[in-house]
C-alpha cells in the first residue's frame, strides 16, 4: 500500500492541508560532451527536457544543476544563463543533473482549486440526480479518492492504483480532523491547518495503513 499524498480542501475550495508522503525521488546526473543531444526548453520557470529521452533522463524532467551548481529558473548559482553555458563548446564536458519536477505549494493550491469545479461539474453531468461528485479518479500510476463531508469539506488521498478501502481511510482522516484540528481552540475555521498534534496522528495513521492496510482501521 503506497500513499502519495493527503489533501484537505475547505468548503470554499481553498487548500487547507497538504502532505506529501514518500514520493519517490528521481534524480539522474550524467556528464555530456559537445554538442548536447538532449533538447531543453524554458517552460513555467523551469528548464525542461522536451525531446531526447535516454539513460533515465525522461521527457518532462527538469534541469536541477550544472556542474554541481543549482539551477533556479534558467540561471545557475553564479548568475550565468543555462542556455549560454550549454551553447558554448569550451564549457564541455558538462555534468548535468535532471530530476522529476516537484509541485510547489503554490501549484498545489492551484490544483486544489481546479479540482473543486471539476467535482461540481461531475455532479452536474450526472444523468441521474443526487450524484455525489467525484469519489474515485483512477489513472495508470495513481488513484485519487475523495470524500466530501455534509459540511462541504473535501478529504483527498492520492494512492497506489491498487489501494483498497480508501473510504474507511478517508473517514479516519475526517475523525482526526474533527478531533485535532477543530477542537483546537486556536484553529480558526477555513484556515490552513497548522496543528502539530494533527500532523503526528496523521503520520501514525499513514504508517499503520502502509504496514497493515485498511482492513483493521
Amino acid at each position, binding site marked *: 500500500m503506497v500513499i502519495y499524498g493527503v489533501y484537505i480542501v475547505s468548503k470554499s475550495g481553498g487548500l487547507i492541508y497538504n502532505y506529501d508522503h514518500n514520493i519517490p525521488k528521481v534524480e539522474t546526473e550524467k556528464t555530456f560532451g559537445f554538442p548536447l543531444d538532449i533538447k531543453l526548453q524554458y517552460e513555467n520557470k523551469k528548464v525542461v527536457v522536451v525531446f531526447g529521452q535516454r539513460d533515465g533522463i525522461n521527457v518532462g524532467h527538469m534541469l536541477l544543476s550544472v556542474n554541481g551548481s543549482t539551477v533556479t529558473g534558467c540561471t545557475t548559482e553564479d548568475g550565468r544563463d543555462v542556455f549560454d553555458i550549454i551553447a558554448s563548446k569550451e564549457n564541455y564536458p558538462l555534468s548535468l543533473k535532471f530530476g522529476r519536477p516537484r509541485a510547489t505549494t503554490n501549484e498545489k493550491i492551484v490544483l486544489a482549486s481546479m479540482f473543486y469545479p471539476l467535482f461540481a461539474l461531475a455532479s452536474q453531468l450526472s444523468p441521474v440526480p443526487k450524484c455525489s*461528485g467525484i469519489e474515485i479518479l483512477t489513472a495508470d500510476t495513481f488513484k485519487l479518492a475523495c470524500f466530501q463531508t455534509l459540511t462541504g469539506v473535501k478529504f483527498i488521498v492520492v494512492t497506489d492504483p491498487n489501494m483498497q478501502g480508501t473510504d474507511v481511510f478517508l473517514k479516519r482522516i475526517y475523525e482526526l*480532523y474533527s478531533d485535532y484540528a*477543530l477542537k483546537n481552540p486556536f484553529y480558526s475555521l477555513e484556515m490552513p491547518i497548522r496543528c502539530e498534534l494533527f500532523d503526528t496522528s496523521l503520520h501514525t495513521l499513514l504508517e499503520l495503513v502502509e504496514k497493515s492496510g485498511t482492513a483493521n482501521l
Partner: protein
Amino acid sequence: MSRLTSRLDAKKVNSELLTLTYGALVSQMLKETESTDDVNKHLERIGYNMGVRLIEDFLARTSSNRCLEMRETADKIQQAFRLYLNMQPTVTSWSSSGDEFSLVWDQCPLSEWVEIPNNGLKYCALIPGAIRGALQMVQLEVQCWFVQDQLKGDAVTELRVKYIKRLEDAVPAGED
C-alpha cells in the same frame, strides 16, 4: 461501530466537571459584564462557535446522512444530546406544518445544583447557540429559544426549534 463506541467510552468524563466548569464560566461572565442580556448573548455566541466545530465531530462519529426533513433533524439533535450531554430529551409539540418542534427535558447536566438569581439570565443559552451553529454548517437555518425553564420555576425545560430556511447557496456540490 464497536470501535467507535469503545473510542467514546475512553473519553468519558464525570459530568460534574462539566457542570462546575460551566457554572464558573457563567458566574464569571455575570461578574464582568454589566447587563444580563449581554451575558445571554455571549453565551449564545460561545455556543454557536462550539456548534460549528462540534458538528464535524458528530458527523465523523455517527456517519449520519443529510436530513431532508425536520423529523430526521430532530432525531439527530436528540442523538447529539445523548452523545455529548448523556441526556435524552423528548421531542414533542410538533407544529402542524412540521417545521417547528420542542425538546423537553427535566434534567440537564449543565444546570444541576443551580439556583439562578432572578435577573433574566438564560443559564443554558449555550445549548440553543450550539444547535444553531451546528445546523448552519449543514445548511439549515433555524431559530432556537427557551419556552420553559426549570430554573425559573417551570416543571420542565422546553427548547423550541424552528426551521427558517435552507441555505441553498452554501449547499456543497453534488447535494442540490
